């Protein structure tokens, strides 16, 4: 895990979450900038996961290894899953799904970081 990357993930995720909620309130679909932001978020998550897996393989182990690996797995699957689920919903609720997923990602990343640091 890289601290700064985790902060970056959280910042991007929260910005996207807020943007999504505003767009949903305006009854709009997520536009190109938001979708590009979601793509960026997923790339950051994948980079973070790659770093974490590398360190795990090298022998760095958080105490709660099982929980950590579980969170890690969910952290890379959540955005694609949520995006697919939201794309079929053409109303504002599709936008809101994306926003909620991004906010969950932010929380998840902080949990991951604290598990890693404590370990």
């Amino acid at each position, binding site marked *: 895990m890289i601290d700064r990357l985790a902060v970056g993930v959280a910042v991007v995720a929260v910005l996207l979450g807020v943007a999504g909620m505003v767009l949903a309130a305006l009854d709009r679909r997520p536009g190109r900038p938001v979708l590009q932001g979601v793509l960026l978020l997923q790339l950051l998550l994948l980079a973070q996961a790659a770093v974490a897996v590398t360190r795990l393989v090298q022998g760095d182990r958080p105490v709660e290894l*099982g*929980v950590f690996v579980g969170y890690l797995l969910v952290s890379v699957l*959540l955005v694609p899953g949520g995006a697919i*689920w939201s794309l079929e*919903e053409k109303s504002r*609720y599709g936008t809101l*799904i994306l926003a*909620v*997923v991004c906010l*969950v990602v932010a929380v998840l990343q902080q949990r991951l970081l604290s598990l890693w640091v404590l370990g």
Partner: protein
Amino acid sequence: MSVGPSVSEPVGVGPGRLLVAVYGIFAVAAASRAGLQLLTRFDEAPLAYLLSALAAVVYVVATVALGRSKRRLALAACGFELTGVLVVGTVSLLVPDAFPDETVWSVYGAGYGFFPLLLPVLGLLRLRRTRAPRTVCR
């Protein structure tokens, strides 16, 4: 005979689709946590962990049932969850030693942001909102 033309609205559409998404996230969280508890610390509190696992299974069932508009199954699952969180929540307050804090339903799901209390209520409301109008019901 088939059931005739379906007059109830799909459940997992519009706000329902958002609800299914949140249910799904929660189901994954509850299921993985329960699985881990059973695998690693089952001896510490078998009853609590088994209860968590049961709850997790029901969350998964509710997610699928709401998403696919299996109304009866969804009703049963949400009803079970609401009953569970109310009963276990109350018991955990009256007899604090009965359950450790790690049950999903302890103190009405306070450890999980009260989502265990909120979700079944929203699920039941959604089912009510989308049901067939009474006049067409048989």
